[in-house]
């Protein structure tokens, strides 16, 4: 047994937890096993934080969260908040939005609209939107997930409302006034371009919105 993986170190100000190694699962198990011993020993001392060179910021955050909520360590919310910020600044999204993004991994719920959406109408939904009908100019679709139109899309469609760049917009006849996916906004070119007479899918590729014909795999 490697005893030196977890090491509580007392100073005159309080106690640090030093963690060596990068096997997160193993560290977790060790922590569960040994925590009570340490707790008894350092009862009453101020906890100053976790030091771990080989772990990522996310992992350190997770350990902090466990220490606070599972083992009752006295870690202030401000400290945790700061750590959250450090971690999520890498993704350039607020922690809250990140949480919602993760739900997108499960695609979210889907709203079905039957009929034509007309100018001035707006549908906003936290999941995907499927329109069984047309979307006229001046109508607005906003979805956190994907947008599918089983008809002609002439209005404005915004998929991936929270910055999800994996979202797509697809339509049987894709002629939008404007398309938005995540934070990217594109509009139809001013001059006419050749169009495919097939359903088309718009998605982000290398930071740009591309539109490609939908060709079923044969």
């Amino acid at each position, binding site marked *: 047994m490697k005893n030196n993986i977890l090491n509580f170190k007392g100073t005159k100000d309080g106690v640090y937890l030093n963690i060596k190694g990068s096997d997160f699962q193993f560290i977790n198990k060790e922590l569960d096993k040994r925590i009570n011993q340490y707790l008894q020993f350092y009862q009453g001392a101020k906890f100053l934080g976790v030091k771990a060179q080989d772990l990522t910021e996310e992992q350190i955050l997770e350990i902090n969260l466990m220490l606070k909520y599972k083992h009752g360590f006295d870690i202030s919310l401000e400290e945790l908040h700061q750590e959250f910020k450090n971690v999520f600044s890498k993704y350039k999204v607020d922690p809250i939005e990140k949480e919602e993004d993760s739900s997108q991994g499960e695609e979210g719920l889907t709203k079905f609209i039957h009929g034509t959406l007309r*100018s001035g109408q707006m549908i906003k939904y936290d999941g995907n939107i499927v329109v069984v009908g047309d979307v006229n*100019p001046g109508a*607005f679709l906003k979805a956190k997930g994907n947008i599918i139109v089983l008809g002609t899309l002439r209005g404005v469609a915004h998929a991936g409302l929270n910055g999800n760049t994996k979202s797509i917009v697809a339509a049987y006849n894709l002629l939008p006034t*404007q398309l938005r996916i995540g934070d990217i906004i594109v*509009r139809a070119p*001013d001059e006419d371009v050749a169009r495919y007479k097939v359903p088309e899918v718009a998605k982000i590729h290398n930071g740009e919105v591309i539109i490609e014909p939908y060709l079923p795999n044969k």
Partner: protein
Amino acid sequence: MDNEKLGTAIVITSGKGGVGKTTTSANIGTGLAMMGKSVVVLDADIGLRNLDVVMGLENRIVYDLVDVVEKNCRLKQGLIRDKRFEKLYLLPAAQTKDKSAVKPEQMLELVGELKKEFDYIIIDSPAGIEQGFQYSIAGADQALIVTTPEISAVRDADRVIGLLEAKGVYNPKLIINRIRPEMVKKGDMMNMEDISDILAIDLLGVVPDDEEIVISTNKGEPAVIEGKSLAGKAYMNITKRIMGEEIELLNLDSNNESTFNKIIKLLFGK
């Protein structure tokens, strides 16, 4: 821009719908930009926006008038630059809101801001005399009344002139749209003297009923740009008159008058 010099805010209004307010706004705004002025055309018809399509800028809209007055975005973000003229901008109306979204005080503040940056602010007012009309005229220094040679349109124009006076917007100018010279000649359509006499306000210009307007609207390119059509010429003249030039009224007959008529005129001086 010179801080002390403020621009002029002109509201285009009519009372009656469908007389050509939006077309007039687009053409005057574009015309002023063609003359080198910095211009914002402001679509005040919340819920029924159209100035964007007439100017061919509908696919560039991200923010709108309501976003700007509610400060969801900066003023600069709401302004859409025209694709042809560098000094021409559109502030589009919101489409998914209604007229209650903007208050006269907000409009007054907004127009005040715009006047600091631009030479002209052209406000395309909605039809009617309700809320939309009230906030449209809130910041206006001048008003242009658009009417067509029909009783219903002239009557509504008269009502609007009275309302403008009540709100302290005096000396509105008249634009008569969709005049059909051949009908005027037959005596089956009121002519410009008839209308301006009845309304008792100054005539700024007359625009003939011109197929070219339909074509230019289809293309999203105001007729004043091409400038070859009678309507386009008429709008350019109106633009110049707004800028203070003295320009004679367009001879609407020049294009479709037969040689026979011209000779008669020469002979009898009529």
